[in-house]
């Protein structure tokens, strides 16, 4: 037949607990034990409080630029909950909730934004926050490959924004994972904006999820503000990775409720109506309602939690602020496993040229 069908497909959109509080009992069945839902909610409130305090630290000059995570907590938290400790979390910078759940010390994240590399020394399977957009997915792919090669049972799960899907490295990571059969879960947090640029400039297709079709990859769209749906799709994706070494592409539809970072002013480019719409879809509010409907949570607990969060976060801030300052030595100490002579000289003399220095460079 001269006009033939070469390829045909559909992409599903998954939601379990929607913005109106409607919960799909069938899909939600046995997904998360109630006690865990409570724990996830409590964690989310702590992360939200951390986020607000981090914002204030910047505003009061106690920290540098900080990207608020507000409104996007469910996506990374649901994923982290669905994964195992041996899996790599390769995140961008709006995944505090998932990283903290995994056990990354929150003060490290503050340290990072306080301009201190010690914030990136993390003893769990997580890479440092990715500043250059779109580059980290290749590392997840390589880490997943290493796990497959070594047979350690781990997989890679990487997070990135809608903007990041415009970078060439995104394409290369997806393509390597698909064609070399690597156990990676790609989670795109489509939060509608890349700084001031709306998603349609990054992807004018009806969904970002369909980016995955280019690689013959299993692709799905999910309500990223619905932690139940997140847990479900990431769990399935993790299984597909772990058992079949096949990657999955997940578009988590969410929204950045804050400015891009503290250096940004979204009112320059964003319709306040849009913001209102999404404030009503806040993953935290949604989850609290679900819990209250089921008598798993009440206002008293909420109050107590608030007080606990304040104590936790002020402890975090204290530890981050009280760390001894880094020394100039640190600039040189970590460049190579063994510091070359030229760096030793520069360290000792705080100079680059050896003018006036002895012949052996000291």
């Amino acid at each position, binding site marked *: 037949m001269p006009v033939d069908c070469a390829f045909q497909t559909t992409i599903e959109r998954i939601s379990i607990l929607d913005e109106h509080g409607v919960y799909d009992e069938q899909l939600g069945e046995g997904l998360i034990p109630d006690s865990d839902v409570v724990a996830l909610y409590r964690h989310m409130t702590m992360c939200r409080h951390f986020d607000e305090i981090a914002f204030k630290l910047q505003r009061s000059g106690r920290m540098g630029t900080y990207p608020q995570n507000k409104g996007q907590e469910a996506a990374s938290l649901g994923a982290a909950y669905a994964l195992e400790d041996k899996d790599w979390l390769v995140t961008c910078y709006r995944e505090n909730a998932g990283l903290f759940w995994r056990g990354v010390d929150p003060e490290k994240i503050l340290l990072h934004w306080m301009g201190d590399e010690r914030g990136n020394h993390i003893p769990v399977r997580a890479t440092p926050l990715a500043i250059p957009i779109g580059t980290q997915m290749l590392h997840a792919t390589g880490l997943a490959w290493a796990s497959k090669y070594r047979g350690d049972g781990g997989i890679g799960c990487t997070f990135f924004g809608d903007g*990041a899907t415009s970078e*060439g490295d995104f394409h290369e990571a997806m393509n390597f994972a698909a064609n070399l059969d690597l156990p990676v879960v790609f989670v795109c947090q489509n939060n509608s904006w890349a700084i001031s640029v709306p998603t349609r400039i*990054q992807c004018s297709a009806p969904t970002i999820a369909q980016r995955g079709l280019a690689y013959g990859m299993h692709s799905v769209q999910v309500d990223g503000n619905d932690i139940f749906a997140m847990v479900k799709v990431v769990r399935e994706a993790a299984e597909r990775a772990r058992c079949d070494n096949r990657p999955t592409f997940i578009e988590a539809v969410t929204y950045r409720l804050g400015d891009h970072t503290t250096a940004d002013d979204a009112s320059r480019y964003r319709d306040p109506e849009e913001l209102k719409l999404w404030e009503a879809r806040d993953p935290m509010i949604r989850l609290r309602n679900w819990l209250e409907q089921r008598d798993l949570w009440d206002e008293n607990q909420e109050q107590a939690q608030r007080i606990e969060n304040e104590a936790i976060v002020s402890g975090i801030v204290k530890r981050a602020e009280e760390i001894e300052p880094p020394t100039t030595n640190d600039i040189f100490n970590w460049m190579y496993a063994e510091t070359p002579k030229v760096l030793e000289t*520069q360290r000792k003399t705080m100079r*680059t040229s050896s*003018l*006036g220095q002895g012949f052996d460079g000291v």
Partner: protein
Amino acid sequence: MANLTLVQAINLALTQEMEKDDRVLLLGEDIGANGGVFRVTEGLHDRFGGDRVVDTPLAESGIIGTSIGLAMGGLRPVPEIQFEGFLGPAYDQLCTHAGRMRSRTRGGLTVPMTVRVPVGGGIHAPELHSDSPEAIYSHNPGIKVVMPASPYDAKGLLISAIRDPDPVIFFEPKRIYRAFREEVPEEEYTIPIGKARVAREGTEMTMVSWGASVVQCMNAIEESGRDIELVDLRTINPLDMDTVATSVRKTGRAIIVHEAPSNCGVGAELSARIMEQCFLHLEAPVQRVTGFDTLMPYYKLELEYLPNAERIGKAIVETAAY
């Protein structure tokens, strides 16, 4: 004549060139409604519309690769890369294509584009927002590299860059984006690419620098109380060795100051050429005061890394005493 910051001077140059020549268009990330993360393109989207001030997808190779096409197609694109740390993804398009097209086609196709890039440290920015890659793009032939050290120069050099028939990387030292103001004529003027400026005359020694470091040099010279000649390169590729060598032949001593790492930096090239061209005049070895051969640290330590008046002062004392 208005008293402008470097940001305002660039904005003015862009406005005037866009008014004058409708082949000029701007493209980049967040340069439209947002006016750029440093507000350099503020107001231009409103004034010239979305066809001439274009928010692109978040993809630096794409920005430069399409700009090459735009330029070969007869336009004068002025792409912005948001920070020098994000030039990396565009490295290949810049060095493999932009810098080679004229030569490879023996003049058949050319790439008159101006890549605007904020550069350098000192503003307490996150990782990869404080580097100085000018040596990289100078080593790769075919690309001109420009870095102004003042609002006045910024306007004149940017206009020259936009009108230049070859690709230019126009580095904007973000540390002095708003650090001071200067009288900048309203009318258009150009400052030639490839010519350095003697920022301060002197006889005791020569100091060569560019970009934000020029300010540090000026401070160090004043603190030293010595009669030092300061050459602001303005253009890093091609180097204006005549101005540098004339000065060193006069003074017999030279110090080069830049933020980038020392190893294979532009300071090395200057030092080597000064030796080649002024050997018999040199009374002391040329001294380099630069960033270390390490990464630019996160901001808690960045001021330890950047050459400052104190480190420059030490070099002055030692070079004078040699």
